[in-house]
């Protein structure tokens, strides 16, 4: 193969494609390299192919094309039970006819471990998630959060180097979810396990991961650490999907010195950073994060383009103020400001001028 295994990648997808029915490619061209110990999240809307990728990695689906490598070894044809990958399922998949202890014992038994060794490992794995007291219960006697912990400790009890989790927190309520997010990341880092985590919840992805792969339409749209993903989205899908985002549509007038001059649809001109526009005449979608919008003239750079805006709504949210504006015909333009002593509270109906630094305003694909 031309693009052979890069030596430092622990998990590697190499031009992987997947089709279930021979008509539609569910995964289109997946290239991904993960170093050992990384916590990587696959984030994307439902149906974007995240589970399929995970299943191919676990060995429950075969790749239609391409290679999947684990620790430098091609694993396309290795059956799931020989891959030694821990897995946490969305419904936990705790065996209902076994006690918690038996559930955890199962992977150790099939590996032929002796009784005392099994008991020691089970105890350690249960203590790790603070569930030691529940060893003789059945899964049905546990709450959702407790089952989640057991599923996690079962996936870790045989000490796999790679753990896959498919929306493991999807069934929990918000508070418990946040607690578990913290616990999972903590565990993964402490144990030094490589983790592939699947979710459609962007907060979860941003708070937990070393890197996030944003999936859409069977492709990775962007693969980057959380901050980069949020601050430097590479296309409008990512900009829209991650965090809150303001969009303005227009046409590129000229690109010069790393700055693109964009004429918005109502005729106004703004300066932007060209990301995936290359020549004048192209249509573009301009993306600005709500907290990067400035309406205090003193703080704007001299000569910066400004736009007229009308305040439509002011919402007090405690730590921040959220102000909705009408800008260039867009009624959903949002500005977020910190609740500081000198902060201005804008009144609905007020006419103001807004602006931003050209590097915070990204000209993306239309």
């Amino acid at each position, binding site marked *: 193969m031309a693009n052979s295994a890069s030596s430092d990648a622990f998990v590697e997808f190499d031009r992987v494609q997947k089709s279930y029915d021979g008509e539609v490619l569910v995964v289109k061209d997946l290239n991904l390299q993960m170093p050992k110990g990384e916590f990587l999240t696959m984030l994307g809307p439902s149906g974007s192919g995240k589970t399929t990728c995970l299943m191919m990695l*676990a060995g429950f689906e075969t790749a239609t094309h391409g290679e999947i490598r684990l620790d430098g070894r091609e694993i396309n044809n290795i*059956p799931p039970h020989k891959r030694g990958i821990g897995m946490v399922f969305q419904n936990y*998949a705790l065996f209902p006819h076994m006690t918690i202890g038996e559930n955890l014992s199962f*992977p150790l038994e*099939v590996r032929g471990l002796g009784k005392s060794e099994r008991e020691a490992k089970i105890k350690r794995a249960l203590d790790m998630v603070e569930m030691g007291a529940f060893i003789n219960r059945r899964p049905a006697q546990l709450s959702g959060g407790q089952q989640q912990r057991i599923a996690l400790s079962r*996936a870790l009890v*045989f000490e796999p180097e790679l753990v*896959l989790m498919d929306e493991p927190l999807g069934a929990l309520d918000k508070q418990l979810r946040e607690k578990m997010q913290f616990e999972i990341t903590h565990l993964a880092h402490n144990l030094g396990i490589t983790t592939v985590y699947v979710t459609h919840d962007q907060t979860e992805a941003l708070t937990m991961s070393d890197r996030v792969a944003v999936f859409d339409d069977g492709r990775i749209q962007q693969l980057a650490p959380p901050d980069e993903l949020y601050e430097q989205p590479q296309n409008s899908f990512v900009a829209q999907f991650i965090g809150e985002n303001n969009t303005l549509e227009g046409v590129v007038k000229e690109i010069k010195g790393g700055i693109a001059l964009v004429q918005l649809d109502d005729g106004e001109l703004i300066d932007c950073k060209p990301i995936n526009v290359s020549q004048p005449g192209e249509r573009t979608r301009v993306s600005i994060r709500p907290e990067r919008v400035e309406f205090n003239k003193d703080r704007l750079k001299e000569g910066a383009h400004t736009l007229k805006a009308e305040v439509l709504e002011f919402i007090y949210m405690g730590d921040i103020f959220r102000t909705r504006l009408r800008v260039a015909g867009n009624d959903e333009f949002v500005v977020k400001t910190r609740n500081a002593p000198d902060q201005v509270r804008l009144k609905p109906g007020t006419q103001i001028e807004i602006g931003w630094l050209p590097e915070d305003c990204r000209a993306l694909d239309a």
Partner: protein
Amino acid sequence: MTDSTANGEMLTTADGRPLKAALAKAEAHAKRRAFLLVLPLLAFILITFVAPIGQMLFKSVNNEGFTVHEDLGTGVRTPIMTNIAAWFDENPLGTDPGEDAYEALAKDLVVLRELKAPGQAGTRINYELSGSRSMFTKAARKAKKLKPPYKEAILDLDEDWGSPKLWQVMRGASSSFTSNFYLAAADRQRDENAKVVMVNENRQVYVKLFMRTLNLSLLITFLTFVLAYPIAHLLATLPLRHSNLLMILVLLPFWTSLLVRTTSWMVLLQSQGVVNDALVASGILGDENRLQMMYNRTGTVIAMTHILLPFMVLPLYSVMRPINPSYVRAARSLGATSWTAFRRIYFPQTVPGIGAGALLVFILSVGYYITPALVGGADGQLISNLIAFHMQKSLNWSLAAALAALLLGGILILYWLYDRLVGIDNLKLG
């Protein structure tokens, strides 16, 4: 628990009535309505099911053939054989019948003759001592002409009247209630001293037939299980539009008449049938050693396995459908081979369905009648066929009832055992 609160006061409703009384009144109405709703079904079951079964069980211990004559036209019931019954009451078992006994018999025979009932009484004795029916009809014909000493006169007619066995059987039959039919159903009888002994070896049929019924039913249950398990699994895991088609194929036998299905098995399996013809034509079998697959045990097993298959598939399907595939996947990801994952994770979760299907198929096949009757031949008959024989041909309803009651008892015992071993609440029918 008491009716009062902690401080001893009665809880009352807003208008001062005791709370419990008010609740009972409110619920009584709902209960009455529920009862009225199920009343029609209850009556239907009582009339068509409980009553006949009770009557059947009663018949197995009660036979009036030797005690009461009922005129079919008028319904008038006349006691018969009263004199001899009185003699039996006065003389304990083992007394040699003397002149007084034969006199009583002669008087009863006259009554039988007048009532035109000698056949009925003879038949009752004949159940336990074959060949005795004709003795009664013959003697009754000449009863009026009999003169003392009666013993000689009657023994002159047929010296078998002196057989101690006959007198023992008559003693038993002179009471309407008897356990003899149960004994007969277990291949046992009473000898002349009323001791329970096995019947002649060449007449021991029922125990053998019960055992055969049990064995074949177990075999059929096992075969349906082996055939149904993979099908049910396929049905449960296939996407819905494919599984619907397969389900129709599985249920197809339900939609065709039982008789049609059985007959088609006859067409297929008989020695000049399709299967044999195919085997011969393909050269696997010589024309002279065609397989005997019909009119024997093989035929019964094949046809019944096919007919009862859906009863195994459906309960299995209903437990397999909701088993999330992620269980097996989890097991595989934890390092189990697909066989281990099946054995330790999937199979245990299907046990309630296996129990339900096996119980269903077993109970149905223990009582199966039509198919063994048509394709069973001599050694493929089951106990039900014999029950039918006694109901329809030999008209020994008491024996038929005793056989049926034993069958019922056996099934109840198995059911109880199953409950002890597996637990009925683990049963899942759908």
